[in-house]
């Protein structure tokens, strides 16, 4: 029997439906590509991956990622080796290659559970397929994930670029595949049958797939599609557009039993673009393939192409409010942070304590870092850590009198934490002393953020809001440049609360992380925009963003500021002349009201 058909049937034995995923996985094995499977929990992603590995007879390794996954679990542990050398003894370390370095197929469950930095290096390893100059045996990695983290689409594209194939599945019920749902209901727990392929067969099939030619029609269609669908292709790197697509076309043609790929084989694009395409575009793209194949006189293949690109709620993002928001870039130069040049000392301790107090509930994390402070002991893992070992342990160890390894300091550092958006009123009423105070408060907040390496966003507002970017990012660590801008701000215009809040919340909406705070500095009553900022209050609550408000000046504080802070779990302050004539900061009790 045709080994491809046989493999396909084997996958049907224990997994109902998910036709596209099955086809994609088989093609990925043929083309030696990695696959990213995104879908809701319980739709058979991991099961399918495991079945595949079993039936293609690959030495597979499954890794389950979790919050504390260590690099060594993936790459292997280092071992110390004692050896006699002429008259003396030599101690060196060597790596015992772990799962990832030896397996041919790797199944990675729950990709985004891994700590972000580990994830980044894991993905890099997969895409480079080499480690310390050595090529890995790895052919195909299949990673499953529930929808990705809240990072920008471009960041996700770049992060996942190593996965040649990227598809999205939905459950049978949610996706409306009722016949497969029925089969699943009827299914009796089937035993797994014997592997359908042998390693030698796998290698042979891969080789034959690689020898498929790509015909003129396919090339022309490939190009026309790219020109016709620039947005869909935007998610492809040059590598995926060229090399990966070429190999995918070959595998697809081979899978259809041909020695030459034609225009219709571009159907395979759905497996490259699946993660990003919404259902409609997917269908249209497919139609486009057929159309182009027709134009080129290459008929679409019979029987296939009834592509049901069903996707669960991937609705477009809501339309943005038409607020008067301007986008500006922070001016250079990117110098270092100098000492504060403020002449009015501003005591902002109260405000900083409020920020810190809330942030401890958040995600401020401590992570291992060789440059960090010693916090506790752990076992020595590498010889070069000896310098950091407990001296007594180290001496005993060197003399081979210590049965285990010496203890070394575990150095840790507070991880960069949180996002802070600073909204500063520069309307005309903010002049003279008030302007200086607001500048002083802003200055202190930015320095505070710099110490904690929190990212900052800055919005200046009067009746309009001006969002400042640093190297085209709103949330950034360009503290020095921001401090420069604080100095430059000029008072003018009237006051609008809605525009700056909307501007900041929209930014934070796309920023990951649990510790997101806004500090709004103002002296005025809102005369433009919604004075009650109703939808912004709602948005802040939904996002879990705390909005602190500081009312600078002598008049009464508008009650909406109290409401804003109270509802979002933020704090409210008044900046008034203190005893010495300088600024005095105190808390507004009305803002603290009925906080949970």
């Amino acid at each position, binding site marked *: 029997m045709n080994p491809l058909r046989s493999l396909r049937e084997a996958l049907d034995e224990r997994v109902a439906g998910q036709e596209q995923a099955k086809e994609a996985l088989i093609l990925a094995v043929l083309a030696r590509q990695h696959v990213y499977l995104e879908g809701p929990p319980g739709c058979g992603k991991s099961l399918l991956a495991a079945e595949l590995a079993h039936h293609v007879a690959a030495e597979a390794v499954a890794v389950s990622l979790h919050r504390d996954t260590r690099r060594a679990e993936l790459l292997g542990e280092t071992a110390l080796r004692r050896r006699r050398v002429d008259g003396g003894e030599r101690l*060196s370390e060597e790596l015992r290659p772990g799962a990832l370095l030896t397996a041919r197929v790797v199944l990675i469950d729950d990709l985004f559970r891994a700590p972000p930095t580990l994830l980044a290096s894991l993905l890099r390893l997969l895409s480079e397929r080499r480690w310390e100059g050595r090529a890995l045996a790895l052919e195909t990695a299949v990673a499953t994930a529930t929808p990705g983290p809240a990072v920008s689409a471009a960041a996700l594209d770049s*992060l996942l670029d190593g996965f040649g194939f990227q598809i999205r599945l939905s459950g049978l019920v949610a996706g409306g595949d009722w016949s497969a749902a029925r089969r699943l209901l009827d299914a009796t727990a089937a035993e797994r049958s014997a592997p359908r392929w042998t390693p030698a067969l796998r290698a042979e099939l891969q080789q034959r797939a690689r020898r498929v030619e790509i015909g003129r029609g396919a090339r022309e269609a490939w*190009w026309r599609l790219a020109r016709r669908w620039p947005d869909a292709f935007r998610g492809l790197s040059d590598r995926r557009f060229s090399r990966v697509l070429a190999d995918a076309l070959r595998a697809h043609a081979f899978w259809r039993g041909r020695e030459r790929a034609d225009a219709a084989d571009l159907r395979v694009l759905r497996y490259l673009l699946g993660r990003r395409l919404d259902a409609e575009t997917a269908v249209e793209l497919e139609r486009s393939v057929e159309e182009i194949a027709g134009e080129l006189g290459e008929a679409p293949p019979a029987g296939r192409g009834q592509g049901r690109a069903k996707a669960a709620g991937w609705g477009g993002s809501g339309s943005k409010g038409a607020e008067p928001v301007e986008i500006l870039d922070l001016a250079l130069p990117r110098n270092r942070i100098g000492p504060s040049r403020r002449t009015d000392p501003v005591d902002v301790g109260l405000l900083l304590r409020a920020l810190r107090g809330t942030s401890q509930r958040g995600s401020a994390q401590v992570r291992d870092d060789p440059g960090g402070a010693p916090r506790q002991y752990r076992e020595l893992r590498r010889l*070069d850590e000896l310098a950091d070992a407990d001296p007594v342990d180290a001496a005993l160890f060197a003399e081979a009198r210590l049965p285990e390894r010496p203890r070394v300091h575990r150095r840790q550092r507070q991880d960069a934490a949180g996002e802070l958006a600073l909204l500063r009123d520069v309307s005309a009423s903010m002049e003279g002393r008030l302007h200086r105070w607001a500048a002083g408060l802003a200055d202190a907040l930015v320095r505070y953020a710099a110490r904690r390496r929190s990212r900052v966003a800055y919005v200046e507002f009067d009746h309009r809001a001006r969002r400042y970017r640093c190297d085209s990012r709103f949330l950034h660590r360009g503290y020095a440049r921001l401090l420069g801008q604080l100095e430059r701000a000029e008072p003018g215009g009237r006051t609008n609360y809605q525009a700056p809040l909307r501007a900041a919340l929209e930014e934070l909406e796309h920023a*990951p992380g649990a510790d997101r705070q806004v500090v709004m500095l103002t002296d005025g009553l809102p005369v433009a925009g919604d004075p009650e900022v109703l939808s912004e209050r709602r948005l802040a609550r939904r996002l879990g963003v705390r909005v602190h408000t500081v009312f600078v000046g002598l008049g009464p504080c508008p009650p909406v500021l109290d409401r804003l802070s109270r509802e979002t779990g933020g704090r409210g302050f008044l900046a008034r002349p203190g005893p010495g004539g300088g600024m005095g900061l105190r808390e507004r009790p009305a803002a603290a009201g009925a906080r949970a």
Partner: protein
Amino acid sequence: MSGGALQRLRGLLDRHVVGHDSAKQALLLALLSREHVYLEGPPGTAKTRMAELVAGGSGLSFFFYQLHRDTRMAELVGDVVLERRPLDEGDGERIAQRIEPGGVLSCEVCVLDDISRAPGEALNVLLRVLNERRFGERELPLMTAIATGNPVSDEYYNEPLDPAHLDRFALQLRVDSLLQADPPEAARALLERFASGEVREQPEVEPVLSRAELASLQQAVGEVEVPGRVKDSLLEILRSLVADYGCDDPAALLTDRSFLVKAVKLLRGRALLAGRRTVEPEDLAVLHWMTRFRVPEAAHEALPELIGKTLGKRR
């Protein structure tokens, strides 16, 4: 002179990589003038591939390292070993920790892939070593370091590189996606390249030039003449960057080392690449490969025009 040697290396790059003309030229220039080069761009734009090709094709000993979050200095410089030996006299023992040099300490070309991923501490030391080309007592045989990196599109997964770090790379360029580029011809060529099946990628690259050829070229760079008027133009351009484009901040990276010493070397290299023994004003275009991460974006973008204006005035 074996200008043909460079042609061969360029041919190797062109055989394997479509487009990216500036990056290719900059890589050759780096090798020729023994400077370091940094390529930044989105994933999958052949940065690593080009670096590999230059390293392998130049016939020099090379070290390839992919940096990651836990990169330690020891992995870059060799293996750490601990030795215990009885003392020659008396009955004591001597315990010594030492490094068996490897990695960047013993190679001639090193490829540091993805430097944006390395922790600040290791990077700091590493880049200092690259810059000084010595490690402790040891002088490195290193000629050129080629580093690649991704633009930081999300700091959740990446830490931004300190611009001061990037100053260690005389040449610094951005590599953009061909698919997103405006005239689409290059993307079409890329497609054809992979569709044709001509290119089979093997990790091993055959050297296309000999050590002696490279050495004589490197020597020839030093002999290229730099006319006074080109030096004057260089100063005028720098003056305008400082005065008109806000590059006067002490922390801005218009350092004397880069722009008065290395720039001249690169000018010579560029002339030699073009087969000349004298630097021409057009060679000042190399400045554009030096400023990407050293001056504000606006100044960098305006540079070609500024160079054009300066040369026009002189004419």
